């Protein structure tokens, strides 16, 4: 408790002090310092909560809507650790990232908002009162909105910010309804809700929509690909790796409070997760903007997390605790894993943008030579996100796979085999598509010949940025290598989630045995690669090693333009899924005998954005414009409206 309180005090004093530190380097040093100290303290608090069970803090003051009640159990502690790692490293990274803006933008306010975002996320995961939760939630949304529009002078940034603000508030509206339904008699304390929760399924659906908007579930994901490319990279990393996880936290917390899990919840989550995951990765594959690709890939990973949790819920609802445990363990571990590799990828994208001043993958290439650290860590993160052993992504997906395979034999007939098959097909398809997506991202950006002059002259970013990336890459490797220990350490977290469900001797011990084997094989693989490399090097010592140009099948005048582009790499798959993606292709040919100018454009727009929300909001706009005559701008008229409304209400009351 002391640690957490100290962290909050550091963060909030930073929020208050920083706006006065001005635009330049003072703010850019003080901001990260506050954030790193705050994050360090929160990390310790989270670690402590998992080890010892956390704390329960009720303020003595009572307000109309309940007390200020903060509680950190192992589940909150786990999320606190995720948020702390991401925020601390993002602050470290942001120090160098924001340097070029010193003096041009008000960095004090930007860092103040960053600290506010970190603090509010930590409040969200510890709030034990509905009203407090919503207040923290709202602060989180607003502060992240201000961070997104940091570069408001760039075209498109403001409109992206608006999309985000509208989306997040529509989500919050559902949450308000949910808490209103929950809080009978104006009691919003989670302890009370726990007892009186009515209509669990209605609450659950409201939670999935409300929290799902934040988490980026299909079809509420549309703000992600808009907001992430607009925001500075350290902010994108925090939003994508930590903030959207609060949505998952919300769903989990509400489900635990509503408990026991129901089969329909599990099914809802599995189907939502499968659709979200497949759509997310497909859309990611078809992007040309690096950060937009990463944003869609966040949607995909939220899908994987949801599939895992759904499988867990379903397992417990149908009395197969072992399947339930595996699903929940996989989903929960993927939260941490995704936080690690996705922030690493966003950091990489930010470094690339610093070096090349663009995010368009078609204008990159060959960056590995100029930026070896960014490039190598990006490749590691790409491997992790494709769930390749021995990196961390594989461990979480393995647990989910293992759960669904276990469901096939462990419960013939009783447990729905359909669920297992859905999970396996979805995960396998997502895995294959993710491999295509991230070989494209890493390969087109960092390999091959530079496609532009900027790409050719790219330089490695500053020491703080590279340090943050190396730490994250190392963490990805560590979770992969020490997976049994990690799962063992997270035991209390899983216990918190499944508390109240009969376990019937089920435990994660068999899974830990498998993970031990996997980590051994993984370490063996790496050792084998190094041994082979060493042998080859010795063998090659007296051999002739030449440096030539790439074999172009006899063609010697190859230019970088001849290379496969990001779009052409993805085209076969995009065409295969044409019905889902609706790629727009525009080929202008010259029909004359001596054709000169050809042009070809291809672009994939989000079908939900362009075919659902745009038409919907234009209808809303038309209706709103038709009511425009009500607004005349005279104060007297508005007073009249108030009077008329009051009278109408009065008559209505009398009528009843």
């Amino acid at each position: 408790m002391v640690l957490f309180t100290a962290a909050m005090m550091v963060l909030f004093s930073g929020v208050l002090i920083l706006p006065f530190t001005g635009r330049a380097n003072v703010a850019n040093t003080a901001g990260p310092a506050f954030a790193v100290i705050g994050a360090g303290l929160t990390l310790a608090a989270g670690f402590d909560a998992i080890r010892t069970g956390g704390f329960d803090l009720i303020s003595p003051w009572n307000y109309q809507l309940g007390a200020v009640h903060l509680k950190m159990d192992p589940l909150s502690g786990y999320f606190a650790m995720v948020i702390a790692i991401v925020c601390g490293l993002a602050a470290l990274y942001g120090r160098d990232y924001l340097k070029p803006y010193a003096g041009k933008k008000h960095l004090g306010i930007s860092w103040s908002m960053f600290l506010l975002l970190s603090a509010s996320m930590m409040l969200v995961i510890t709030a034990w009162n509905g009203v407090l939760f919503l207040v923290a939630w709202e602060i989180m949304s607003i502060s992240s909105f201000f961070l997104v529009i940091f570069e408001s002078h760039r075209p498109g940034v403001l409109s992206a910010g608006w999309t985000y603000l509208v989306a997040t508030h529509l989500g919050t509206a559902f949450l308000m309804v949910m808490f209103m339904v929950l809080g009978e008699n104006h009691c919003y304390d989670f302890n009370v809700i726990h007892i009186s929760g009515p209509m669990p399924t209605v609450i659950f659906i409201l939670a999935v929509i409300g929290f799902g908007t934040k988490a980026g579930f299909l079809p509420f994901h549309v703000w992600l690909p808009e907001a992430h490319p607009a925001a500075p990279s350290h902010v994108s990393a925090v939003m994508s790796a930590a903030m959207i996880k609060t949505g998952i936290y919300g769903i989990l917390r509400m489900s635990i409070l509503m408990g026991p899990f129901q089969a329909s919840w599990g099914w809802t989550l599995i189907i939502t997760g499968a659709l979200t995951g497949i759509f997310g990765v497909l859309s990611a594959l078809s992007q040309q903007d690096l950060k937009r690709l990463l944003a869609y890939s966040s949607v995909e990973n939220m899908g994987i997390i949801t599939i895992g949790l759904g499988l867990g819920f379903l397992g417990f609802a149908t009395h197969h605790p072992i399947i339930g445990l595996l699903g929940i363990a996989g989903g929960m571990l993927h939260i941490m894993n995704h936080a690690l590799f996705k922030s690493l990828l966003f950091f990489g994208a930010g470094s690339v943008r610093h070096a090349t001043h663009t995010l368009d993958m078609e204008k990159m290439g060959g960056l590995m030579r100029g930026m070896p650290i960014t490039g190598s860590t990006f490749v590691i993160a790409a491997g992790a996100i494709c769930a390749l052993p021995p990196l961390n992504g594989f461990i979480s997906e393995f647990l989910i796979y293992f759960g669904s395979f276990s469901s096939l034999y462990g419960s013939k007939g009783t447990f729905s085999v359909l669920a297992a098959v859905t999970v396996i097909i979805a995960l396998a398809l997502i895995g294959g598509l993710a491999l295509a997506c991230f070989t494209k991202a890493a390969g087109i950006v960092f390999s091959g010949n530079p496609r532009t002059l900027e790409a050719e002259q790219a330089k490695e970013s500053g020491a703080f940025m590279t340090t943050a990336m190396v730490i994250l890459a190392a963490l990805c490797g560590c979770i992969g290598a020490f997976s049994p220990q990690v799962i063992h350490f997270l035991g209390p977290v899983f216990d918190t989630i499944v508390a109240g469900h009969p376990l019937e001797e089920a435990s994660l011990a068999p899974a830990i045995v498998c993970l031990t084997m996997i980590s051994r094989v993984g370490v063996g693989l790496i050792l084998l690669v190094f041994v082979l490399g060493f042998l080859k090097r010795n063998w090659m010592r007296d051999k002739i090693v030449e440096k030539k140009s790439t074999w172009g099948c006899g063609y010697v005048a190859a230019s970088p333009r001849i290379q496969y582009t990001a779009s052409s790499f993805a085209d076969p798959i995009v065409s295969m899924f044409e019905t889902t993606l609706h790629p727009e292709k525009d080929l202008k040919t010259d029909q004359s005998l001596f054709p000169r100018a050809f042009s070809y454009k291809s672009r994939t727009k989000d079908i939900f954005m362009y075919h659902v929300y745009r038409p919907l909001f234009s209808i809303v706009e038309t209706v709103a414009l038709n009511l425009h005559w009500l607004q005349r701008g005279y104060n007297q008229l508005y007073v009249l409206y108030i009077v008329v409304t009051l009278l109408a209400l009065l008559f209505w009351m009398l009528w009843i």
Partner: protein
Amino acid sequence: MKFTIFFHVIAAFILSPILPGIINKVKAFFAGRKGKPVLQMYYDLVKLVQKGTVYSRTTTWIFQASPLVTAAVGIIGVMLVPLGNTPGMLAFSGDYILLVYLFGVSRFFTVLAALDTGSPFEGMGASREVQFSLLAEPALLLGLCALSALSGETSMNTMFTSLQAGTRPVLACAIFIVLLAENARIPFDDPTTHLELTMVHEVMILDHSGPDLALIEYGSALKLWTYASLTASLIVPQEIVNAWGGMGAGFLALTGVTVMVGLIESIMARLKLIRIPQLLVGATILSLISLILIIR
């Protein structure tokens, strides 16, 4: 019993380069030629290892790491699979998930190495490779899913040894199709064509030379061995309890599968690129059918 396990792994290390030789002999037989010697790949490997190498100026560490990863994955792959009734050396529950994703690692590096050269041909091959593999993966995982549903086990070992006879052919078909796709054989890919434009896997390794190429070729041979012994394990009858008998039957079945690959290569043409996804989806459906047969 223990010794047979080691025997399988050591045999795989030594004998896997014979498999492409057998395939080539079968093809030569069908074409009425004498064909290359069965041991041709050994000669090739020895020759390649002794040569120097040429690296493109465009390439980075990824290009040099890729052959090492391919070979290492192949080595671990053969340690994981069972052959006939002989269990795999590293067998544990969930080993097949690891196996599928291990080959993902080698694919990841091969594709990145292909893009690393900046060659348009290799980019093309890489693009096709990821497209086909994304369809092959669900087929393979569903096939293994059917196996685990049938046998009530989650390790490949026990999975194969406790399988009813009825669904075996269907499953064997599904996994065999995946074998053809993953090992770049006809009808998915033609390793012997002289046109870079039409190749998939071979074009991705166009720029590798010398010992690097040897490592890749050896890794591919081990991968073919891995998939072939997966398929072979479905053919070997369960009644053989003798460890050495089972092993022998396993080797026979393995040879059978290899001959089958050669047969298909002799009597079929390479499919149009557009048709390939359909065949892979077909394999997925076969896996699904066998799963339904088991659960019904």
